[in-house]
């Protein structure tokens, strides 16, 4: 008998928020532009070989040294790089790597932050202080410095390792956000009602507190995927990120930088893909934030 009542309270709250969010988003051009761009990128990431094969060369690792740094032309719409590899094929396969790193990092980060943020916000006391100090330590590193130091000591830098390191340096922002929103939700009447009904702590947290605390992180998560993709490319460009056999925009750009004047197309195309990806994710995050917090726009 008690079950439907609490579900109704939560359900109403949630559905109303979702409906309001959707109504706001639906009317925003910014939202649709970023969604369409991201959908295209997702398709590229799933079938890069088929798409690049359609334009000529489907294998990013099949290279012809005699055709080094050729400008765009038939068979190689984006030209070839210094090793004679097809730039288009590399750019398309790089999409997969970048999205993988962006999404994996954000996922790891969210899991860690949800667990720690909820613990801190729900328990309070020394658990809260301990997690807060841990977050302080991680935030004590200036931008990318920590990642540069840690990654440089890693012997074998795979995309997964890069994700783990980037996640390690980015969880505190999320954890703080979740903590403060859990703290707020915890005091709400429906949570107290659930407690009064005798539900276990875990059940209250999982079914009542968390679903109502996660909305604000949605916007930041989208922005973060973009930020992580940019950070990966930057680290790779600096020589402490991914290394060749991995295919990534960062790897392409760090090689191409030396031949900038000779073969500008090797720099231009990966840069465009990288920038468009990051912009659409940040625009998506921005649109979500506006919809979630209309006061921000005023």
């Amino acid at each position, binding site marked *: 008998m008690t079950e439907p009542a609490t579900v109704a309270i939560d359900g109403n709250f949630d559905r109303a928020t979702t409906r309001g969010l959707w109504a706001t988003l639906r009317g925003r051009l910014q939202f649709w532009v970023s969604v369409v761009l991201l959908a295209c990128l997702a398709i590229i990431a799933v079938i890069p070989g088929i798409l690049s094969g359609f334009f000529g060369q489907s294998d990013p690792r099949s290279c012809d040294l005699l055709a080094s740094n050729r400008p765009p032309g038939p068979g190689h719409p984006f030209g070839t790089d210094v090793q004679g590899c097809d730039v288009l094929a590399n750019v398309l396969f790089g999409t997969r790597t970048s999205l993988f790193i962006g999404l994996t990092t954000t996922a790891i980060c969210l899991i860690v932050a949800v667990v720690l943020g909820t613990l801190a916000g729900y328990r309070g006391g020394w658990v809260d202080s301990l997690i807060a*100090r841990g977050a*302080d330590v991680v935030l004590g590193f200036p*931008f990318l*410095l*920590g990642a*540069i130091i840690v990654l440089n000591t890693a012997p074998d830098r795979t995309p997964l390792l890069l994700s783990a390191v980037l996640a390690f340096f980015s969880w505190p922002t999320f954890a703080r956000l979740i903590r403060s929103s859990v703290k707020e939700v915890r005091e709400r009447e429906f949570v107290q009602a659930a407690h009064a009904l005798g539900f276990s702590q875990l059940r209250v947290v999982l079914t009542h507190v968390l679903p109502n605390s996660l909305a604000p992180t949605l916007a930041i998560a989208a922005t973060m995927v973009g930020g992580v993709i*940019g950070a990966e490319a930057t680290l790779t460009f600096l020589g402490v990120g991914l290394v060749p056999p991995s295919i990534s925009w960062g790897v392409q750009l760090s090689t191409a930088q030396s031949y900038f004047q000779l073969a500008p197309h090797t720099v231009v195309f990966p840069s465009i893909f990288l920038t468009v990806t990051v*912009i659409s994710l940040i625009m998506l995050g921005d649109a979500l934030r506006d919809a979630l917090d209309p006061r921000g726009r005023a």
Partner: protein
Amino acid sequence: MWRFLARRLLELVVVFIGVTFVIYCAVFLLPGDPIEALGGDRPLPESVQQQLREQYGLDQPIWQQYVNYLGGLFQGDLGTTFTGQSVSEQMANRWPTTITLALTAWVLTVLISVVLGLVAGLRQGSAIDRSVLLGTIIAESVPVFVMGITAQYVFGIMLKWTPIAGIGDGWPRAFILPALIIAIYGLAGVSRLMRGSVIDTMQSDFVRTLRAKGLARRSIVGLHVTRNAAAPVVNVLAIQLGSLLGGTVVIEAIFNINGVGQLLYKAIQDQEGTLVVGVATTLVLIFLITNVVVDVISSLLDPRIRND
């Protein structure tokens, strides 16, 4: 106030120890033996290696090494590199370059974002407002190094306005481009904050009173709104000063500027552990101290923060 200050300082010490320990472990637990690497292709005799290890304390457990390092640090000794040079000396002639770069970038951030925020906020909802918002999002999204190499190409190679790399031309010619790129990165956040703050101030009671008494719009904006709206922005700008130092590490690599970032970079590649730790420690220390100073200043301005 004193309690607040004491608490913040205590937090600073805890965080500082935590951060330096992470750095220390990351650097010295790495695979690869720096002493062995000293000899290159012709390995040093085992006895010499052993003596060098003892001399640099590398035979001790990591926590012992770390405690020794902290001890030296409190006496202002950042240690010596494996080639026998003092770490502080190595850094001394690099810091001015990095600080000049960071300060130039910071001043540019302040000027550009305050103007953009003011213009957008005063014409809320207009085409200018929307293009400022969109423009800053786009500027923030372009990765720093992409912007760096593009700017090098356009301004350095095509237009020949600025040197392509290096700081041979001195300030401001050689610094303006790298500083601008660092500045653009922080622009989006600050100009948005300024915009929001201007909108709030324009709607406040005292502005309505000023309007009612017939003061010209120019004086209202110039004298009253700007000053009041800037208050919350100052806080963020000060915090940015610390993180700008991190941004310079990336930019120094692209523009080949001989600052602390490049030193850190070279030290990492040469496995000069003490130098890596030294540079990273000072960067972190500056970053943390800026944050505490900002907190203290803003708590003086707004006592409500202290009870947070």
